[in-house]
């Protein structure tokens, strides 16, 4: 589904290379985890895949079901089924969460040639999904993420994911800032979405989330490269021993 080959990315503003040749293949139905030290380029990878400004692709390719992601506008990538749960969800004063969600859902439907949801259909859907994530009606009415606690913001990301039903979901540290119960909620939300046709790329620092969302493959990223890939046991190794041995091994 997601196919990344030799992806090299520099910052646009300064001559600084962040991704130095990333190779990654995620198949439909799979869950992959990426772990790695702070600053290794995990968020950068997720931003570049979703089309954020400020980066220069210096080489390599990234495709989603064969379509060249790097050639698309961010909204086209979303309509093609890519979703990024942000490490730092953005606050948008003046735009109600409901309006935001409905605009997004209908924009994607429109881009895919589907009919827009009526207000009634949308409301029913959003209420059901919000309930699963214990997001109350009041939070839906508030401006997007404004005044939300860290954990509420992360749950709001998962709500968006549930509403948009993307096929390739990238979760950037969705677990950080979540209490134990919220972590369980979010994991349940993700697991409920797991299906044959959908894949997940979960960026995390902690084994705990991976207890709930069992990954098929775990990758270690360091200094702009995937230095090692393996099964779930790799995450346990990081949890127990840190990155030192892995980094030394790679050198």
């Amino acid at each position: 589904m997601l196919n990344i080959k030799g992806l090299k990315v520099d910052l646009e503003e300064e001559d600084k290379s962040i991704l130095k040749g990333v190779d990654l293949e995620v198949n439909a139905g799979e869950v992959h985890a990426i772990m790695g030290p702070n600053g290794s380029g995990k968020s950068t990878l997720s931003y570049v895949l979703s089309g954020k400004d400020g980066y220069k692709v210096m080489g390599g390719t990234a495709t989603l079901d064969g379509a060249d992601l790097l050639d698309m506008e961010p909204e086209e990538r979303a309509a093609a089924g890519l979703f990024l749960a942000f490490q730092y969800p953005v606050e948008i004063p003046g735009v109600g969460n409901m309006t935001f969600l409905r605009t997004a859902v209908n924009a994607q439907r429109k881009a895919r040639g589907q009919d827009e949801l009526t207000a009634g259909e949308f409301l029913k859907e959003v209420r059901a999904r919000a309930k699963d994530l214990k997001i109350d009606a009041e939070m839906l009415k508030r401006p997007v993420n404004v005044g939300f606690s860290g954990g509420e913001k992360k749950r709001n990301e998962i709500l968006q994911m549930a509403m948009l039903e993307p096929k390739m979901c990238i979760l950037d540290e969705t677990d950080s800032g979540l209490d134990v119960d919220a972590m369980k909620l979010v994991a349940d939300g993700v697991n409920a979405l797991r299906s044959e046709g959908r894949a997940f790329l979960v960026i995390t620092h902690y084994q705990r989330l991976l207890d709930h969302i069992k990954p098929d493959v775990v990758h270690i990223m360091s200094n702009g490269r995937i230095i090692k890939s393996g099964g779930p046991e790799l995450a346990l190794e990081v949890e127990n021993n840190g990155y030192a041995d892995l980094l030394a091994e790679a050198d």
Partner: protein
Amino acid sequence: MALPKPKQDATDARLGAVNVPDGPAWARAARTDAMDRTAAMGLPHRRDEYWKFTDPSALVAVDAAPADVLDDDDALFSGSGALTLVFVDGVFDADASDDLAGEGIEISRLADAQDLHWARDLYGALETAGQTPVERPLAALNTATATDGVLIRATGNVARPVCLRYRRSSDDADVVLHHVIRVETGAQVTLLETGSAAARLSTVTEVSVADGGTFHHVRQQGRDHQRRMNTHTFARIGAESTFKSFTLSLNGILTRNDCVIEILGDDAIAHVAGACVGDGDNFVHDDTIFITHDAVGCESRQVFKKVLRNGAVGVFQGKILVKQGAQKTDGYQISQSLLLDGDSQFLAKPELEIYADDVACSHGSTSGAISDEALFYLRSRGVPEKQATNLLTLAFLAEALEEIEDDALADDLRDRLAGWLDRHAG
């Protein structure tokens, strides 16, 4: 004191070309007086303190520059059930208007006013009072030369709003309208205004709100692209009264809205707000607001938001004057612009002048662009760039629109803004 020569020349030329219209004795007296005051003050010039940012010459010139007639739809506020008064090229059109009668309200035409009319105590009086400390000669010229307008006296709680609908048929209509509103003790009325009035429009609206009275004002200014206009609102409000005015402006070459409010009774509330969107380098929009607190425990708010693109210019000059003894004043003023590109400009002159010691006044003025972060967030959810920009633009304007009390009216204006943004984005 002699006027500077350019000002004197421009004033002589304009005053030489206008007539003081006939009417009942009180109107004639007010007009003659206003003409004398205009001559003494001289018409505004770019060098005047409150015209530094906006060139008044098109408003002062003898002839109005023509402006193409826009086929403006008349649908705005049509769901409000308002009593509608229509002015075509500045002349009241009785056939197109509703009957000038309603529960708790007296309405007449300035052109028909008789000798013993309640408006004789107000016509030109609030305008005159509003000439200090800052002179507003275009308002005096309006008092001197207006032939038509509406005189509204609310004596009860008037459920049905009054809507002034302006229409134009000629591309060079140079229109002067003067309205007087008197809200009696405990009475309440809502005034709506919409439509394209003229190639060049001058309006003065004098509003007197007695103790416990409520005046709500919501207007949309003509959307025709080439029009020029200056409006003056002079309000004097009493104890425990409420005055709220909101203006939406789209398009136009030049718009100058002056609002002068004097709060004379304790525990009164005065809110003035506006949203404007301008596209193009011949768009200038100027809000000049002057609120004087001369009573205890009053609240005033000025909330102005401007969206500017392609070289459009926005101006805000706002003052809160708190007189000695006006304790417990709560004054708030915010003016903000959203610059959609690097060519547009926002010029602001926020002022506080406070002579009482127990007051809470705050003011702020900002200029900013669309947040890249927010824009990317929306786009990453599948919202196309243009639509995302419009959503963020409406969000920026939301704080001003929230000043409108009536949700249905606010929705009308929001729809109009959304339509404008759809047409202009890109």
